């Protein structure tokens, strides 16, 4: 008896599915079209472009693009400036991302704690820098750091914020300033989603606010922290606006300072095939790094 019912249900389900396929296709079509046009095709084009090399005869012969296999990739692997720039942003990320997320978490916990007054004001105040476009923020900080144009001249003339030794960390400060509030908001909204009964239970068990934060809030918002970490890792590898703007303030930022700046410089030569190869390698590196981070943290966070 029961098997017959199941059979009928299964058959019904199978029959119902057929008309739905069309509807699904209609709903998916707009996304699929845009996804193909602006995502898959450009990626395919970039990968194809990265495999072309130029041939010509004579000093001013007409250039012809021919398939060159992976020869551009061999150049990428050999490129000193590329790996230096990757090393530079990794160093940047290892220091800046934990500092920024630590601050974001701290601010989120403070906003969420019952001890703080003026919660709405602080929420807005912390978030405001994110509303400043990245380029404008970099220009503003460039002026603040400048030894001659800064309003804090006595300080900036003593400390070379824009010198070769410090400029990377001056940029880290700009990035932190812009993104702390954004990350804070993601973590904070995840804190708001925690059911209040849990806190009540904790308080009945005699837990202090600090204990609640450490043992309940942080573990429960771990997924949000991991999400912000991944965004930050990607953002770090793609650093472009800050170094580009800082080039107008100091000699210490070379045209190959970050991987993206190197891609931009290479494409302006113009050597677009090599620039495409750099981009593909950078994209793969970003993917591997983000995915590894996710795999490592996932085991702890989602258990």
């Amino acid at each position: 008896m029961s098997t017959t019912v199941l059979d009928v249900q299964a058959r019904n389900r199978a029959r119902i599915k057929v008309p739905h396929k069309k509807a699904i296709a209609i709903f998916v079509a707009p996304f699929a079209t845009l996804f193909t046009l602006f995502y898959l095709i450009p990626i395919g084009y970039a990968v194809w472009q990265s495999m072309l090399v130029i041939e010509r005869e004579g000093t001013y012969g007409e250039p012809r693009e021919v398939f060159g296999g992976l020869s551009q990739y061999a150049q990428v692997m050999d490129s000193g400036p590329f790996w230096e720039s990757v090393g530079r942003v990794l160093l940047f990320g290892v220091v800046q991302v934990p500092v920024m997320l630590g601050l974001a978490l701290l601010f989120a916990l403070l906003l969420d704690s019952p001890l703080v007054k003026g919660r709405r004001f602080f929420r807005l105040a912390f978030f405001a820098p994110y509303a400043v476009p990245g380029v404008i923020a970099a220009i503003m900080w460039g002026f603040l750091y400048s030894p001659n144009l800064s309003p804090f001249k006595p300080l900036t003339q003593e400390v070379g914020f824009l010198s070769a030794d410090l400029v990377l960390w001056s940029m880290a400060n700009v990035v932190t300033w812009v993104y702390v509030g954004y990350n804070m908001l993601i973590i904070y909204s995840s804190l708001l989603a925690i059911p209040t009964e849990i806190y009540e239970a904790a308080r009945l068990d005699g837990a202090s606010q600090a204990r609640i934060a450490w043992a309940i809030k942080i573990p429960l918002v771990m997924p949000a922290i991991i999400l912000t970490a991944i965004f930050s890792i990607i953002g770090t590898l793609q650093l472009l606006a800050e170094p580009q703007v800082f080039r107008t303030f100091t000699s210490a930022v070379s045209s190959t300072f970050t991987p993206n700046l190197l891609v931009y410089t290479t494409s302006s030569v113009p050597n677009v095939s090599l620039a495409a190869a750099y981009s593909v390698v950078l994209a793969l590196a970003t993917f591997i790094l983000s995915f590894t981070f996710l795999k490592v943290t996932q085991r702890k966070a989602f258990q």
Partner: protein
Amino acid sequence: MRITTRAVSVALLAPLALAACSSSDPGDGGEGGTTDAGACEPSDGAVELEFTSWIPGIEGVVDVWNEENPDIQVSVQTGPNGNGGTYQNFFNQLEAGNAPDLGQIEYDALPNFRVQDGLENIGVCEDVAAAQDQFVDWTWAQASLGEEGALYGVPQDTGPMAMFYRSDLFEENGIEVPTTWDEFATAAEQVRETGGYITNFSQADINQFAGFVWQANGSWFANDGEAWTVDLDSPESMEVAAYWDDLIERDLVSTYPGWTTEWDNAYNSGEVWSWNSAVWGANSIATGAPDTAGSWSVAPSPQWGEGEQSAGNWGGSTIAVLKGSEHLYEASQFALWLNTSEEALTMLNEEANLYPATTAGLELPVLSEGVEFYGDQAIYDVFAEASTQVSADFVWGPTMTQVYNDVSDGFAGAISGSGTLPEALTAAESSTVAALEAQAIPVAE
């Protein structure tokens, strides 16, 4: 788990979007590829031309043309200077097949555009070929890229170099205006004692440095038709580099990046006293350092040997017809008018201090007048003399954007304390050879 997939797809999406943006292949010719003499014919009816330039006040000059030529209307678009972004735009537009008909291109960038097959040969137009006599010899040599009967841009202006200096400060402090580079180094020490800097060495202005090498009779490239010779580390080039390296090492020159607010401020505040620059630099000082009006003078560049008379050249442009333009005849007519007619040349000089590339242009009445910003000195007399002292043998390479980037990065390193200027040139020599080979451009051993 939803976070996982979302984050991963973001991880994928973000960098590749950039990869897509940056991938446009250099012009491979296409249908509009070759030009033959027949292509330089007037079109039927009215023609509209697009023109991209970064010359201040160019709109006014174009308006004059448009009023006089209802059938050839030019719409002008202005952008950042060439290496500041306009060249990149041109390369992208050429790739996309929607480049403007006419573009401002400096002499040093012509080989780069030629090697990417981005220029029409306007030498096929009779009126253009007939105009050769009107131009200063070396400008025609640079714009024809050494090809007989060819021309890849109508020479517009030149940038003979001289020394702008704060005559008031030199006088007040009893420092003599240097006439040789040795004297310049001595004066640099004296200026430093007063707290200022004699000049600024801008690591990004590699074409200024090339001007110094040009003045020292050095050359960076040669093209014999079969292959290129790359000579960034020629003895003259290395000597000039060693000279500036010494001044930087001893903190006798400032090292602000050029064309920035910091740089303007250094001149405006009187911290930096002189600038070895081209004739068009007269405009840059006037706009960048308005508070110092009336305190500047112009003297011939310091010489490498006593009694020598040699000048470098920095910049100067041509008006080129970009590949794919369907109106070669009309475009070349406009380019000729813009760069040979007295009314256009006068306006270009008044608006932007452009210094004409025609021999007749050098005698424009406006060029013999005193200039208020320079204490009413007739500064163009100095540049007129310098322009006759510019060597015609300096050749630009086919990948100057890359050369400038690489030398500039090396110089920036030297300024921040790692390496020296000569070492930067040696490194750029090998990276330039590699860049040429990457574009399949033959390089002589």
